[in-house]
């Protein structure tokens, strides 16, 4: 009697499924509790990985809720690669649709921010452009200039105060969040990712620059809340610009 890996997998992910016949104990009898070792290992190891990956999400919903939610997530989205450092990439979209979490509407954006921090931590190292690099460009050439940003750089935009919520759950002296839209720049000047609050216009401009658009194109679609000088100053200070071309 052959047990296929498809049968093994299906029974392993469903705690109520029967153990495939042919999986036995040393006496030749069906091995149910023994099979449960694998069910348990898989669920616990994936759930632990999600806990480590989303500590602020976990703090916001509590341990018990997080465990239950992780149990649903890991069956719906098993890892697609053995690189557990990137596991949980579907968490923001999952939380958008996860009915029991609807009362915490900012949860998906906090998950997106934690995901961005993790990506930044493992992103490729980059050599920043010198701090005066933009000053060397002739004023009439500035608007047609493009920037290459470091692989760790990400802008996360939200309708909710994600920066304030993140701080309130990671720092003891942080102020209480005020309900407002917030955005953050995530960058990695050294080995630890940094978080800087920016406005929505800056987040959008950074995303456009990341896509290879010129400074002129990034300004053209922005409203008057974009302070491009401040954005460029922050990017340079964070070592987030690697090339100007």
């Amino acid at each position: 009697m052959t047990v296929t890996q498809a049968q093994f997998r299906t029974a392993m992910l469903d705690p109520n499924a029967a153990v495939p016949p042919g999986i036995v104990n040393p006496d030749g009898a069906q091995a149910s509790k023994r099979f449960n070792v694998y069910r348990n290992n898989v669920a616990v190891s994936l759930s632990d990985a999600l806990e480590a990956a989303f500590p602020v999400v976990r703090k916001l919903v509590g341990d018990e809720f997080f465990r239950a939610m992780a149990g649903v997530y890991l069956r719906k989205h098993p890892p697609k690669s053995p690189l557990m450092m990137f596991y949980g990439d579907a968490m923001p979209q999952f939380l958008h649709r996860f009915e029991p979490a609807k009362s915490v509407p900012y949860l998906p954006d906090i998950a997106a921010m934690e995901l961005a921090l993790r990506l930044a931590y493992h992103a490729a190292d980059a050599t920043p452009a010198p701090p005066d690099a933009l000053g060397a460009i002739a004023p009439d050439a500035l608007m047609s200039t493009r920037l290459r940003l470091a692989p760790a750089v990400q802008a996360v935009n939200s309708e909710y105060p994600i920066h304030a919520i993140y701080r309130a759950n990671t720092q003891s002296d942080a102020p209480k969040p005020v309900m407002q839209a917030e955005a953050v720049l995530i960058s990695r000047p050294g080995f630890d990712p940094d978080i800087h609050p920016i406005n929505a216009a800056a987040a959008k401009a950074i995303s456009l620059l990341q896509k290879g658009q010129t400074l002129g194109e990034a300004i053209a679609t922005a409203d008057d809340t974009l302070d491009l000088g401040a954005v460029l100053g922050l990017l340079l200070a964070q070592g987030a610009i690697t090339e100007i071309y």
Partner: protein
Amino acid sequence: MLDATHPDSLPARPGVGYKPQHYTAIMADPGPLGWLEVHAENYMGDGGRPIAQLRHLAERFPISVHGVGLSIGAEGDLDKDHLARLKHLVSWLNPASFSEHLAWSTHDSHFFNDLLPLPYTPKTLDRVAAHINEVQDTVGRRMLLENPSSYLAFAESTLSETDFLRELTQRTGCGLLLDVNNVFVSATNLKTSPQAYIDDFPLEAVGEVHLGGHDEDEDETGAPLLIDSHGKAVVDPVWALLDYTLAKSGPKPLLIEWDTDVPEWPVLAEEIARADKALSLVTA
């Protein structure tokens, strides 16, 4: 098939599974620690601190790269992207050893983050041998294959685990990583003799020995069910099994594996000292 005479270059000294929280302690006073083992998958990001730290460690210690995600026992093809990542890691790091498990962990492109068992039959032997050949050809070096912890058996198995492993070394030229805690766990769970397993094991192919802790449970019949947790100290019967093994095999590189509930460095240093003592008994 690669040259089976390729020397294993880990020293026959104690090593430890590296955890970043022990970095400072290890650098300050390694004691008898002779080498470090890292999980390959933790160093497959694009950059940042993990890679920088590993480069730094490799300047000081021989490194063993131990993969947990290749799924060599899978029914399906090996993950080509993962093989390419492994090749990249091994080529820039040039570790003293590379090892993986006799297990599967991926099915239909989904990875389950656990070492899952396979039956031992002529058919699975062909498949695993082909996968090992593919790994060795791609990575360009000999690999060590680790014996698993077993909790259950497959009625369809026709080969013993030791015969299965011996045949793999003969067909592919791969070496073996002998985990004596896994031997003890499997023998207890499957009601066999751990010493008999060691007697049957092709010790001449062993390039590394693992030691770790396990949890104790019972199955529904009340029979002991040991679980390979890597979350405790090595128990006395496993140290005794190590002595039994080393007396037959001579000195080998010994690894202390502690992956969950990882303790402070002094606790690991004690285990390393005990492994060092076990080696001194067989190093004339």
